[in-house]
């Protein structure tokens, strides 16, 4: 289990500042949610933490170790990411086997077949699916493959970028339950972006509400129902979300 701390994270694209001094502390083994409207900078936090976007200032530490000082191999084996759209995150011309194997080859991991088979079993897919191509799988199965691809390197920290928002409602629950189970089994730490407070309520112990690139408030899960949020924007967002749930 590893903790992650984000200190004074700021990002600017040209003249536009997207993130203003974001501070987050996520304890080892915690599932932490990031909520906010579109364009509030939720996904940018993940892209910075994974160094997909490397032009930021501030400090991101995993178990007290600056991620910029980690070697690529160490970073890959500590932290992996699951993307929002399972149709875009798997290469259409690569079999599931080559998608999973890439990380193992690059990081020079031995015993690849058993590792890949284990990852497939972990996400509840038959091992024979390794020889399939993404277009032969359903959306939920693809997202499971994407999770297996992240797990095959045995990371401690998983960055989840709206992992269920591209999926059908019935499949969403499956994938969320899978993520909950994996966290318990493997002692993973999650940092999850979502715009769905119901998902956050189901998965996360704590969550942060973001607005215009700032953290408006960090709240425990209970705050969704007991109305203990102080920040006006946070209250508004929670109220709107609950009203929406009722309307459905």
């Amino acid at each position, binding site marked *: 289990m590893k903790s992650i701390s984000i200190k004074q994270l700021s990002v600017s694209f040209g003249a536009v500042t997207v993130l203003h001094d974001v501070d987050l502390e996520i304890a080892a083994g915690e599932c932490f949610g990031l909520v906010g409207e579109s364009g509030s900078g939720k996904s940018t936090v993940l892209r910075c933490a994974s160094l*997909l976007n490397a032009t930021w200032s501030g400090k991101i530490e995993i178990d007290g170790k600056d991620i910029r000082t980690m070697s690529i191999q160490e970073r*890959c084996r500590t932290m992996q990411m699951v993307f*929002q759209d399972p149709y875009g995150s798997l290469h259409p011309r690569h079999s599931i086997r080559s998608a999973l194997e890439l*990380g193992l080859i690059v990081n020079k991991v031995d015993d690849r077949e058993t590792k890949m088979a284990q990852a497939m079993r972990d996400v509840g897919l038959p091992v024979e699916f390794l020889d399939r191509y993404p277009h032969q799988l359903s959306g939920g199965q693809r997202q499971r493959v994407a999770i297996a691809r992240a797990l095959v*390197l045995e990371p401690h920290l998983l960055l989840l970028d709206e992992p269920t928002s591209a999926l059908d409602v019935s499949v969403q629950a499956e994938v969320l339950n899978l993520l909950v189970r994996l966290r318990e089994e493997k002692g993973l730490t999650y940092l999850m972006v979502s715009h769905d407070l119901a998902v956050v309520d189901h998965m996360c112990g704590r969550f942060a509400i973001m607005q215009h690139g700032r953290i408006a408030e960090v709240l425990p899960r209970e705050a969704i129902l007991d109305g203990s949020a102080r920040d006006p924007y946070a209250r508004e967002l929670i109220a709107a979300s609950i009203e929406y749930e009722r309307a459905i």
Partner: protein
Amino acid sequence: MTQAPEPSLTTNRTRLPQGLVMLGNILSVLARTPTSLFGLVVIALLVVMAAFAPLIATHDPYIQNLANTLQPPSMAHLFGTDELGRDIFSRLVHGARITLTIIALVSIVVGPIGLLFGTVAGYFGGKIDTVLMRITDIFLSFPSLILSLAFVAALGPSLNNAIIAIALTSWPPIARLARAETLTFRSADYVSAARLQGASSARIIWTSIVPMCLPSVIIRLTLNMATVILTAAGLGFLGLGAQPPLPEWGAMIATGRRYMIDSWWLVTFPGLAILAVSLAFNLLGDGLRDALDPKQMNRR
């Protein structure tokens, strides 16, 4: 767990190797449209002619017979004889080899160079992109035949130099195409995922980006082949490509030009051959554009 229903239609066909299935699909799509079928058949004929040239040719393409010059087409000489008494049909058949060599060599050189320049420029962007694209701009700013002429004039006229010259002038469009394609793929999630798995840029370009660019590059190369044939024939016609007595189609037209008024067959048959083959490559390229469409490809 409610697993989505299996796409059962594909289950028994997945046994076949991926490449073979794809090739079969492409061929069946091509065969369905008459124009691309025509292209395919003409090119197949060209390949067969080149492969079995000594068996198909009725005479030796180099043996002269000065007692038998400028004979019109007859049973003895299907397409007649030229000014030195050589059988035109046999020369055409042997010329297919030269044409194919030119096309093959140019494509082998141009495809990888264009892909390399385009994908590297598109993937890295920034200064690397600027430098590589300005280099391609320099090559693009000359008309390709003029540039080839200049190269051949500098290197000396021969078939090999013509091939080098044509290759030098035809890679920039491929590079531009590959770059444009790369720009659309480089921010895809699967590229990000590969980066997070620790893959190096070279590996990502080779395994993730090149396979996505390949279909359009192949289409472009096929459409390019018609231009390559015409440029090669043009260089041959100007005496800067294949040298006599090589039976290159453009060179045959150039020498036949002097006798064109009295002996039409000297220029007509090589001309028809050039027309048929370049038309065939154009039609095949058009057909490939449909066949390599991702929607068709995924219909396994």
